[in-house]
C-alpha cells in the first residue's frame, strides 16, 4: 500500500499528458514536497516524472513506444508559435508579456493575417470557434487557464515552448555555421 499523498489524482492528471502547476494547489504542493519519492514510484512503470526548473511537473519518456502524439499537439504548438511571433514583432518582452497578459479570443492575431490564417488552416482551425476549442484543450493540458468570458492566460508550462524555440534557433544557427565553410569553393588548379 502506498502512502504518497494525492497519488491517484496526480497520476490521473499526469497520465493524460497534462502538467501539474501551481494552479493545481494540493497536488502541486504534494509533489513539490517530496518529488524524489514520486519520481521513484513512477520510474518502474517506465514513466519519467520531470520537474521543470520553473517548478511544474510532467511525464516525459524519450521513446514513446510508437504512440502517436496527441492530435491537439500540432494545433496547440502552431497557436503558441504565432503568439510568440506576433509578440516579438510588436517589440514586446516575449516571456514577460505572454505569461503575465490575459488574452481575449477576439484580440488574438491568429485570424487577422493571411499568413497566420494559413498556418491555422494547416492544423484545421478555421474560425473563432476553433480557436476557443483549442484554448479549452490547452487549459485541460495545463498550458492555459480559461475563463468563461472567452479570456485566458498562459501558464508556466509555456516555458517549455520557449526553451524549444531557443533550441530550434540554436540548432538552425549551428546548421548555418556548419554549412557556411563549404560555401567557399575550393581552389581548382586547373582553372589557372
Amino acid at each position: 500500500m502506498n502512502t504518497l499523498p494525492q497519488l491517484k489524482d496526480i497520476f490521473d492528471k499526469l497520465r493524460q499528458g497534462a502538467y501539474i502547476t501551481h494552479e493545481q494547489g494540493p497536488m502541486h504542493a504534494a509533489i513539490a514536497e517530496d518529488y524524489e519519492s514520486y519520481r521513484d514510484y513512477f520510474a518502474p512503470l517506465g514513466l519519467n516524472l520531470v520537474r521543470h526548473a520553473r517548478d511544474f511537473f510532467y511525464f516525459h519518456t524519450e521513446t514513446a513506444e510508437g504512440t502517436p502524439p496527441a492530435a491537439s499537439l500540432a494545433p496547440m504548438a502552431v497557436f503558441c508559435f504565432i503568439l510568440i511571433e506576433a509578440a516579438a514583432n510588436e517589440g514586446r518582452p516575449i516571456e514577460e508579456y505572454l505569461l503575465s497578459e490575459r488574452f481575449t479570443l477576439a484580440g488574438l492575431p491568429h485570424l487577422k493575417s493571411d499568413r497566420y490564417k494559413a498556418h491555422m488552416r494547416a492544423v484545421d482551425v478555421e474560425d473563432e470557434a476553433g480557436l476557443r476549442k483549442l484554448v479549452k484543450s490547452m487549459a485541460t493540458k495545463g498550458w492555459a487557464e480559461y475563463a468563461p468570458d472567452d479570456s485566458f492566460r498562459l501558464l508556466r508550462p509555456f516555458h517549455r515552448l520557449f526553451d524549444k524555440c531557443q533550441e530550434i534557433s540554436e540548432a538552425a544557427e549551428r546548421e548555418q555555421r556548419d554549412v557556411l565553410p563549404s560555401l567557399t569553393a575550393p581552389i581548382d588548379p586547373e582553372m589557372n
Partner: protein
Amino acid sequence: MQLTPKRFFDFCASHVPLLHAIATKPGDVSEAQVRQIIRTFSDTAQEQPETTWQRLLELQVIVPLEEGSSHYVMSQPLLHLLNFLYNDALPTSPEIIQGYIAALESARKRIAAGVESGDALSVAMAGNEIDHTLRRMQDDLDATHRAVMAEVARYKADRSSVSVRERYQRILGLMDQYVHPLVEIVRVDGLLESTLDETDLVLRAAREQGVYVELAMVERNERQIRVLRRRAIHTLNESRKELQPLYDVLRRSSAIAHGATLALGRLRQMRLEDWVAHYTTQTTNARIEVPPTDEVLRAIIDDVISHPPIAPPVLNTTESAETPPDYVRLLWLNALPDMIHEDLPVKDLTSWLTSNFPEKGTADALLGLSKLLFDPKLDVSFKGGRMKSYRTRDGQLEAGTIAITKATPAAK
C-alpha cells in the same frame, strides 16, 4: 558682427527648443528644413522667422557644410554643450581611446627625453598635452557611460513596436562595439593601465629631477591619472552591468522569436507528423490499461540478463596494527626506478632484481620487473641469447638477458 558671449547665450536662452530640435536632427539640414523648424519651434510674435534665421547664421549656431552650401550642421562646440546639458552623449569607440593612449605614449617619450637632456620647454609642452589628453579621455569615457545609460533607459521606457530582433541587434552592437573592447583596454592589466603607469613614472622623474619648475601642472597630471585609473574601470564596468541583463533577456527573446518563426515556416514544408516530432514539446500519455509498458519489461529483462547477481563483498572488520602488505609492496615498486638509477648501467636486470631483493617471491619479482621494463625513463634492451635461471624466495624465473644501459632525461 562681433560674436559676443552675452549675445550668443541670450539667443540660446530664448531659443532652447529650436536649438534642441536642430541638434537632434541626424546629419545635415537644408535651409528649407531649418526654416521649417524655426516656424515650428519659434515664437513668431516675438521674432520674425527671417530674423531668427539670420541670427542663427550670425551667431554661428549653424554653419554651412562647406562654403556656399545650402546645407548646414550645428557648430560642434554648441552641439557638445547641448549634449552635455541634455545628458545626451555618443559612445566613444575603442579606436578613439587607443588614439589617446598613443598620444599619451608619444608625450611620455618626449618628457623622458626632455628630462634626460634637461629641456624644460619640451617637458612643459608634453606635460600640457598629457593634461589635455587625460581630460578628453575622461570626458569620452564618461560620455560612453552616459550614452549606454541613456540607451538602456530608452529601451526600458520604449513601448514602441520595434521588433525584438532589432532591439537585440542594437544592444548587441553597443556591447560588441563599445563596451567589450573598452573594458579590454581599461582593465587592470590592459593597455591604458600600463600607459598610465609609465606616464606617471616620467612625470615623477620630471618633478624629482627639477627639470620642470611648474610643479602644479605635474601634480595635476598625476592627480588626473589617479582619477582616470579609478573611474575608467568603474564607469565601464557599470555600463556593462547595466547592459548585461538587458542583453541576456533580449538574446533569449530574440532566439525564442527566431525559433517560433522557423517552426512556423517549416509547417508547410514537412509532413505534419514529422513537424510535430521536431518542433513541439511532448509529454507522455500513460496508457493506464496496460502497465507496465513493453519498454519497461524489456529494460527489466535486459537488467536481469546483463547483471547476474553477485555476492556482496566481505569486509574485514577486524583491525590490525600491521602495515598492510599491499601498501608495503606498492612503496617498494614505486622506489625501484630510483634504486636502479644508482647502479646504472645494469647488464642483467633480472639478476640485479633477484640478487638485490632475495626476500621477494616470484610474484613480486615479476611485478618489479614489469615496473622497470615499462618505466618511460629507462632505456631497456633485450639482449637475446640463451635463457638463464634466477632464484627467487619461493621459486625460479627463466628469462633472456635484459639490459638497462642508461636513463633518458624525459619520458619518450
